[in-house]
C-alpha cells in the first residue's frame, strides 16, 4: 500500500469516527437534557394535566365502549333485515358488523368528546388524593405479598410428603407439622387457615401426580421438546391463600372512598356517566386506577400510558413534540451508549481486532453494552450472574469436547453428536433400571464413555480417509447419525413404562424428566448461597477439573504430539509421528468428552432429550470455542473458558434484556441463531479462503 492511499483511508476513517462520536455526543446530550427537563416543575405540571385529561378520556371511553357494545349486539339484527342476507358469507357478515360498530363508535366518540372547559383543578386535586391513597395501599400490599411469597416458597421448598402430613390429621396437627418443618411459618398465624387448605390441595396434587406416574406416564402430548428459555429459577408463587392484614384493609377502604369522590366529580363533568352499567363501570375503574397508580413509574411509562388515552391532544403542538422527545430520554441514552461503543470500536479497530479478531471484538462490545443495558432495565445482576454460571457449567464440557478435535487436526468436530448420543443412551439405560441419585450419574458417565470409545474410534477411521473435508463430512455424518438414532430410539427394546410411549407400548419418549433420577445432583454438591444466588459449585468444579485434566494432557508428551499433528501434519509426519493414530486419539477424546458433556448438561437442565434434540449441540459448542478465540486449526483450554463465559453470558443477558425491552420475545432466539452461525461462518472464511486456490 502506498503512503498516499494509506493517508487517504486514515483521513476518511478519521472523519467517520469523528461523525460517530458527534452523533453519540448529541444523543447523550439530548438524553441528559431530556432527563433534566423531566425533572422541571413545568413538565411535571404538564404531565399532571395530561393525567387529568387521560382520566376524563378513560371515563368517557367507558360510555363509548358501552354504546359500541350495544351496537355490536344489535348489528346482527340490522344485517338480517338485508334481503341479501342469506347469500352473504361469514366474512361479509363480519365486515358489515364491523362497519356498523365502527360507525356507532365514531358517533359516540364525537358525542362524548372530553369537553374543553372543565374545572381541571378540582379533578386534579381529587386525583392526587386518590393517588396518595392508592400508593399507600400498593406499598402495604407489595410489602405483605413479599412476606407471603417468602413464606410460601420456604414452605414449598422445605415441606415434602404432603400426603403423609395431611392424611387423617386434624387441621391443628397439620399446622403443627408444617410449622415444625418451617419455623418461619410460626410467626404468621394469620395464614393458618389458608396454609391448611393449601396442604390439602398440595396433597391432592401429589397423589394425582403419583397416580399419573404410576398408571400412564407417557401420554403422547409429552412429545414436545422443552426449551431452555422456559427454565425459570424461581418457583411460581400462588397467591390464593394470601390473607390481607388489617392495615391493608383500611388502606383499601380509604382508596375506595377516594375513588368514589373522584367518580362523583367525574359524573358532575360528564352527567351521562351515571347511566353506565356495572360491568363497564368496573372496567373504567380499573382503567382509571391503573392510570393513576402509574405515578411512581418512570416518566416514559407514564407518558405512554397517558398518550394511549389520547391525553396529548390537550397540549400545544410544540409542547407535545417536546414531551415526546423528552419521554424518550432513556432510549436516546441507550442509543447514545451504543453509538459511543461503536465509535470506540471503529476508532481503535486495528489494535483491537488484531488482538482479538473481528467477531470477538464485536461480541465483547455487545457484552459490555448488554451489561450496561441490564443495569438500566433494573435486571438483578447477581441473579443474572448466577444464571450465567449455571449455563457455563451446563455447556462447559460440551464446548470442551471441541478442543481435542481442533488440536488433532480434524477441525470443528460437528460429529460430536455421536458422543452426545452415547451419553443419552447411557442416561436412558440408567432410567430403564430405575437408578437414582449419584450412582445413576456415575453409571451414566461410565457407560456413556464406554459406548463413546468404540463409536468415536469407528468415526475416526472414516475421518482419517477424508482429510481436508472433515467439517462438511462430520456435520452430515452427525446429522445422519441423529436421524438414524431417531429410528433407534423407537426400535430399541427398552420396556420400563416410565420411559416409553404409553399408547404405542414401545419406543422411548422425547423428553425424560430427571427429577426422580439424577437432576441437579452435581449442582447441589458443595453448593452455597451468596448474594441471594445459589452457586452450582459441583457442576462448575467438574467443568474446571475437566479443563485442568485436558490442560495437563496437552502438556504431556502425547498431547504435544497430538497438537503437532493438528498444527502441521506434514512436519509431524516428517518427525516420525503417526498422524492417523494421533487423529484417532483426538477424535475419540472429543467423542468421549461429548458423552460426558451431555450427561452433565442433562443433570443441570433436569431433562434428557432424545430424537432431534442433540442435532444442534455441535453448533453451540463450536460457536462457544470460536468466540473464545480459537480457530479451526488452533485452540486451547483458555479459549474454551473465555468462550463459554462470553457466549453464554451474551445469550443469557441478551435474553433477559430483550424480554425486558420488547414484549413477546423471540428476539433472543434470533440473536442466538445469528451469533452462533455468524461466528462459525467467520471461522470458515478464515480457514478456507485462500488455501485451495
Amino acid at each position, binding site marked *: 500500500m502506498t503512503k498516499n492511499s494509506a493517508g487517504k483511508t486514515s483521513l476518511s476513517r478519521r472523519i467517520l469516527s469523528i461523525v460517530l462520536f458527534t452523533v453519540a455526543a448529541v444523543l447523550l446530550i439530548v438524553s441528559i437534557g431530556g432527563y433534566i427537563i423531566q425533572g422541571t416543575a413545568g413538565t411535571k405540571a404538564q404531565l399532571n394535566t395530561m393525567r387529568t385529561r387521560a382520566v376524563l378520556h378513560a371515563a368517557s371511553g367507558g360510555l363509548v365502549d358501552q354504546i359500541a357494545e350495544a351496537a355490536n349486539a344489535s348489528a346482527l339484527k340490522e344485517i338480517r333485515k338485508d334481503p341479501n342476507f342469506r347469500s352473504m358469507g361469514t366474512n361479509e357478515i363480519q365486515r358489515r358488523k364491523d362497519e356498523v360498530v365502527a360507525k356507532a363508535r365514531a358517533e359516540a366518540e364525537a358525542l362524548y368528546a372530553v369537553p374543553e372547559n372543565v374545572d381541571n383543578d378540582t379533578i386534579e386535586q381529587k386525583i392526587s388524593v386518590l393517588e396518595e391513597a392508592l400508593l399507600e395501599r400498593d406499598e402495604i400490599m407489595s410489602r405483605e405479598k413479599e412476606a407471603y411469597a417468602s413464606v410460601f416458597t420456604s414452605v414449598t421448598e422445605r415441606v415434602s410428603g404432603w400426603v403423609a402430613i395431611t392424611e387423617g390429621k386434624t387441621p391443628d396437627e397439620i399446622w403443627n407439622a408444617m410449622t415444625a418443618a418451617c419455623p418461619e411459618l410460626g410467626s404468621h398465624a394469620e395464614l393458618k387457615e389458608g396454609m391448611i387448605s393449601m396442604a390439602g390441595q398440595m396433597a391432592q396434587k401429589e397423589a394425582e401426580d403419583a397416580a399419573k406416574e404410576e398408571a400412564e406416564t407417557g401420554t403422547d402430548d409429552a412429545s414436545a421438546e422443552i426449551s431452555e428459555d422456559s427454565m425459570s429459577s424461581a418457583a411460581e408463587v400462588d397467591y390464593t391463600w394470601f390473607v390481607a392484614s388489617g392495615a391493608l384493609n383500611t388502606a383499601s377502604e380509604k382508596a375506595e372512598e377516594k375513588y368514589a369522590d373522584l367518580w362523583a366529580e367525574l359524573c358532575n363533568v360528564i352527567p351521562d356517566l351515571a347511566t353506565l352499567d356495572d360491568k363497564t363501570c368496573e372496567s373504567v375503574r380499573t382503567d382509571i386506577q391503573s392510570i393513576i397508580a402509574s405515578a411512581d413509574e418512570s416518566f416514559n411509562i407514564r407518558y405512554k400510558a397517558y398518550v394511549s388515552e389520547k391525553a396529548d391532544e390537550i397540549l400545544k403542538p410544540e409542547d407535545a413534540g417536546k414531551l415526546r422527545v423528552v419521554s424518550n430520554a432513556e432510549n436516546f441514552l441507550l442509543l447514545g451508549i451504543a453509538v459511543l461503543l461503536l465509535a470506540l470500536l471503529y476508532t481503535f479497530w486495528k489494535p483491537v481486532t488484531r488482538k482479538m479478531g473481528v467477531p470477538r471484538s464485536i461480541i465483547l462490545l455487545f457484552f459490555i453494552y448488554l451489561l450496561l443495558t441490564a443495569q438500566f432495565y433494573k435486571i438483578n445482576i447477581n441473579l443474572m450472574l448466577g444464571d450465567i454460571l449455571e449455563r457455563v457449567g451446563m455447556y462447559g464440557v460440551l464446548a470442551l469436547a471441541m478442543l481435542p478435535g481442533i488440536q488433532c487436526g480434524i477441525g470443528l468436530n460437528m460429529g460430536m453428536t455421536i458422543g452426545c448420543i452415547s451419553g443419552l443412551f447411557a442416561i436412558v439405560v440408567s432410567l430403564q433400571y430405575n437408578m437414582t441419585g449419584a450412582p445413576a450419574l456415575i453409571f451414566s458417565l461410565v457407560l456413556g464413555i464406554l459406548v463413546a470409545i468404540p463409536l468415536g474410534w469407528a468415526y475416526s477411521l472414516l475421518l482419517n480417509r477424508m482429510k481436508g473435508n472433515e467439517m462438511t463430512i462430520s456435520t*452430515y455424518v452427525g446429522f445422519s447419525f441423529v*436421524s438414524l438414532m431417531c429410528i433407534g430410539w423407537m*426400535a430399541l427394546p427398552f420396556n420400563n413404562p416410565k420411559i416409553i410411549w404409553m399408547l404405542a407400548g414401545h419406543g422411548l419418549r422425547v423428553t425424560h424428566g430427571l427429577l426422580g433420577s439424577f437432576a441437579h445432583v452435581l449442582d447441589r454438591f458443595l453448593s452455597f448461597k451468596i448474594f441471594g444466588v445459589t452457586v452450582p459449585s459441583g457442576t462448575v468444579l467438574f467443568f474446571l477439573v475437566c479443563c485442568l485434566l485436558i490442560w495437563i494432557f496437552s502438556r504431556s508428551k502425547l498431547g504435544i504430539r497430538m497438537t503437532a499433528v493438528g498444527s502441521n501434519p506434514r512436519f509431524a509426519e516428517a518427525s516420525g509421528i503417526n498422524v492417523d493414530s494421533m487423529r484417532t486419539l483426538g477424535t475419540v477424546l472429543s467423542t468421549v468428552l461429548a458423552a460426558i458433556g451431555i450427561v452433565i448438561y442433562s443433570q443441570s437442565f433436569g431433562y434428557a432429550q432424545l430424537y432431534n434434540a442433540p442435532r444442534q449441540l455441535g453448533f453451540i459448542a463450536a460457536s462457544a470455542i470460536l468466540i473464545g478465540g480459537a480457530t479451526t486449526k488452533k485452540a486451547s483450554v483458555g479459549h474454551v473458558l473465555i468462550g463459554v463465559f462470553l457466549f453464554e453470558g451474551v445469550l443469557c443477558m441478551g435474553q433477559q434484556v430483550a424480554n425486558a425491552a420488547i414484549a413477546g420475545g423471540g428476539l433472543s432466539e434470533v440473536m442466538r*441463531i445469528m451469533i452462533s452461525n455468524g461466528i462459525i461462518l467467520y471461522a470458515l472464511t478464515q480457514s*478456507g479462503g485462500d488455501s485451495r486456490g
Partner: protein
Amino acid sequence: MADRKGFAENLKKYAVTYLFIAISVFFIIVSKLDMNYVCSQLLLRLNRNAFIVLALIIPIVAGMGINFAITIGAMAAQIGLLLTINWGVTGFTGILLAAGITLPLGLLFGFLIGKMLNKMKGQETIGSMILGYFANGAYQLLFLFIFGNIIPLNKNVTIVGATGVQNTLNLTGDTGLYKAVDGILALPFFTAVWILCGALAAWSVIQFIRKKYNQKKLIVNLSLSAVISLLYVFPDIRAVFDGSKGGRVITVPVITWVIILMLCVFNSLIMKTKLGQKFRAVGQNRTVANASGINVNRTRLIAIMISTVLAGWGQILFMQSEGIGTFQTYAAHEQVGLYAGAAILVGGASIDRATNWQALLGTFLFHSLFITAQNAASNLFGDSVIGEYFRAFLSYGVIALALVLYAWKGAQKRKPGNELKGAVKN
C-alpha cells in the same frame, strides 16, 4: 465383454440411484397404497419441486458443491409473496409481481452469498448450509421485528396485538395466488402425454431430416412415443390416471411444466455459451481456469446469483401449488435446501457433476420415497413414525454418503504422484 464392463462401471457410478430405485419399488409395493394416489401425489410433488432442484445444477457445475444457500433464495421469494399479498395484487399478475420482487432480491442475496463462498473455497457445502441458518435468523428479525413495525404492513398479514408477520400466510381466497400458475391450463394426464409424445416424434423427424439423428435413433424415438401413447388402451393403466376406477382424475398443470422445461433448456443452453464454458472450466480446476485468464471469483459469483434467483422462482412455484394454499411464514424455507440437495444426489449427481435428467429423476425417486415411507413403515414395523424418521435419515444419509464418496475420490486423487500442490491463489 466391453458392454458388461461398461455396465459394471455404470452400476458402480450410479450405485446410489440404483439403490434408491430398488428402495422406491420396494416401498411402493410394501406401502400397499393405491397407484392412483401414488401417481397423483408424485406428479404434484414433481411439478412443485423440480424447479428448485434444477436450480442447483449451475453451482454444481461451477465446482461449488450443493448450494444449500438456496434457502436464501426461497426467503427472497417469501418476501416477494408477502409484499404481493400485502399490496393485494391477485392471481397470475400477483405471481409475476412476486417473481419480479424476487429477482433483484435474489441477485443481491446471491451476490452476498457468492462473496462469502469465495472466501471459503472447498468448504462451500457446509458454508452455504450455515449461511442458510444465519440468514434464517436475519429472516426472523425481518419478519418479526422490522415488517409491521418499521416497514408498515396491512392488518391482514400482521399479528393482531403483537409484533411481526402472521405465522401462516394465506394464498387462497381474495389473494387468489393459490394455483395461479398450475390452474391456468390443466390437461388430463394422457392428453398431456400425447402432446409430449407427438412433440418428441416431430422433433425426431426434424432432426432426422437435418441429418443429426441416424435411422436407429429415429426408430427408437418414434416407437417409444408410440408405445407410451398407446398405453392408454390398457384399461388398468388408464384407470390409474383418469380415476375411472375410483380415485381422482390426474391432470397435468401445463404452464408449470412448460416453465420447468424452459429451465431445463436454459440449463443446457447456458452450458454452450462462453459463460457456461467458464463454469465448467472453473468447476474442473480453479488453478487451470485462473491460469487461462478466467476470473474465477467472478464466475463463481455469477453461478450463485443465477442459482439464488432460480431457487426463489422455484419457491414461488412451490408455494402457489403447495398443500391447502397457506404457507408457514417462519418455516416454509427451512427444508428447501436439504430436500433439493438430497433429491439431486439421489438422481445420480455428485458434488461436482449434475445434469437436468439427474435432477428430474432424483426428484421423482426422492419423492416417491417420501410419499410411501410412512405407510411402508407402518406396514413393516407397525409404526408410521418410524417412516417419518426414515425419511429424515434418507435425506441426511444420502448427502453424507455423496460427500464421503466425493472426498474419498479426492483423497485417492491426491495420493502422492497425483497431487496438485502449490496451487495458485486466485
